């Protein structure tokens, strides 16, 4: 007798699938990141590798390097988890975190009130950084107000978009900072605005950038924090201890020196003194 499926059996795969999906979505409700770290010893970190001392690809072995990478590796070491690095861009990093492609973001993403409502973050910052503009040496621009009505390059998702719009700059936001900087050199804009930690070493050291200078003071200095998915308070508390430890032991100041991040951040010294005094 040929085997025929009853209507219920025919729908069985659908039921099983639905149950599996529901089960998965309930499992996410607990603080999934910490659970994953403790159970499976895995940690997926989104890092920004846009060039410069914070994150770039080492040309000799094609591996990511920089302060972002060092921090991610050290988190893994202290938590006893295997770290998987995922390169992200300013334009997609929030989506990567929200969709669970990465568990944490160490991606030069500064804290702002809007972002603080959307996502979770580790309260102690690991750095403080503001924006600066690279302009031609003979350019007339010396203050931020001079950018009014001028074409200014930046990257999509940059936290300087809002303040620059308020200055009345005509923004051109590229996929990432590398395209923005190339566009500046192609004369498509009068200035390129990015993190000071990216611009300063370029204009100071790179021979290709000798015709450019950076403008001061820094625009909207803001704390750089590690981002998590919203509500993951257990993970945040755990990471906060580690970040405080970085400050107390001077690990971050050393790492800053190791990666030749200039000028050295006064915020790091401040935080080092603060946590050493409190002994936290």
């Amino acid at each position, binding site marked *: 007798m040929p085997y025929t499926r009853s209507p219920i059996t025919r729908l069985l795969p659908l039921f099983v699938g639905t149950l599996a999906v529901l089960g998965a979505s309930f499992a996410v409700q607990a603080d999934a990141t910490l659970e994953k770290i403790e159970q499976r010893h895995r940690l997926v970190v989104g890092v920004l590798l846009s060039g410069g001392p914070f994150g770039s690809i080492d040309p000799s072995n094609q591996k990511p390097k920089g302060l972002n990478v060092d921090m991610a590796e050290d988190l893994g070491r202290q938590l006893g988890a295997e770290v998987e690095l995922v390169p992200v861009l*300013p*334009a997609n990093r*929030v*989506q990567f975190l929200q969709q669970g492609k990465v568990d944490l973001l160490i991606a030069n993403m500064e804290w702002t009130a*809007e972002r603080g409502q*959307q996502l979770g973050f580790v309260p102690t910052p690991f750095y403080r950084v503001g924006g600066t503009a690279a302009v031609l040496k003979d350019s007339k621009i010396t203050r931020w107000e001079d950018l009014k009505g001028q074409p200014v*390059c930046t990257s*999509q*998702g940059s936290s300087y*978009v*809002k303040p620059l*719009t308020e200055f009345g700059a005509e*923004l*051109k*936001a*590229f*996929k990432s900072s590398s*395209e923005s900087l*190339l*566009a500046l*050199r*192609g*004369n*498509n804009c009068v200035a390129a605005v990015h993190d000071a930690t990216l611009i300063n070493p370029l204009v100071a050291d790179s021979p290709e950038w000798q015709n450019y200078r950076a403008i001061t003071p820094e625009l909207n200095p803001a704390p750089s924090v590690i981002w998590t998915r919203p509500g993951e308070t257990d993970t945040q508390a755990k990471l906060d201890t580690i970040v405080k430890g970085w400050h107390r032991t001077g690990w971050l100041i050393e790492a800053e020196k190791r990666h030749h991040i200039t000028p050295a951040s006064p915020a790091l010294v401040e935080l080092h003194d603060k946590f050493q005094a409190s002994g936290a």
Partner: protein
Amino acid sequence: MSHWLEVFVQWAAKLGLNYSFVLDAYARDSLLQGALTTVWLCLFTLVGSLLAGVTLAAMLTSGKPWLARPARVFVEVTRNTPTLVQLYCAFLVLNMLLTQAVGTANPLTPFAWVVIVISLHKGAFHAEALRAGIEAVPAVTLEAASSLAFSSRQLLWNVQMPLAVRFALPSLVNNLIDLVKMTAVASAIAVGDITYASIMIWTQSDNVLELMILLLAFFGLLSFVVNCVGRFLEARLRMPGYGH
């Protein structure tokens, strides 16, 4: 106007979609401006790509090696490399070299580069579609035309092209629909099209889903318009006993 927008926002909120950004004048203006830029991009690239396509097809089928060979090389190189890479190469490399050569007098804007790159890219595809049409014109028709003392240029314009376009129309329309969608690459070099405007909004606030729906609907609509025009032309140009 703003009343209707509020009604829409409230209606969308019931579905769990947060469209409140359309009430913000700045976000709304940049989206509308973006939509307009996309429409302009489509119109310019549409005309540009057809011109490039006809020229390339004429070169390819000219039977003169000094015309046909460069055209063949161009078509192969252009259609075998990604549009985004071509755009980056043109805008970030060629444009920089041009600026270094002529200084700030460089007249080519990012918008112009997008039009040039997409026109040439899609032109290569049009050329192949048109070549199929040109080569499908029966030899007897050409012989008949030659016997009326048509020069080779007259032959191409008055006999081959009109017939070739009829053959190639479905695949030309296919290419043009692809072209409409291709204009989204403009956002990569900060041309303010609708994709760029959406990225700028969603990187500042959390409404990716809402903007994605809007983007898909907008491009869907534009492609549908091209599709309708194509169908209309097909019906209009139809010749009894020829093809259909």
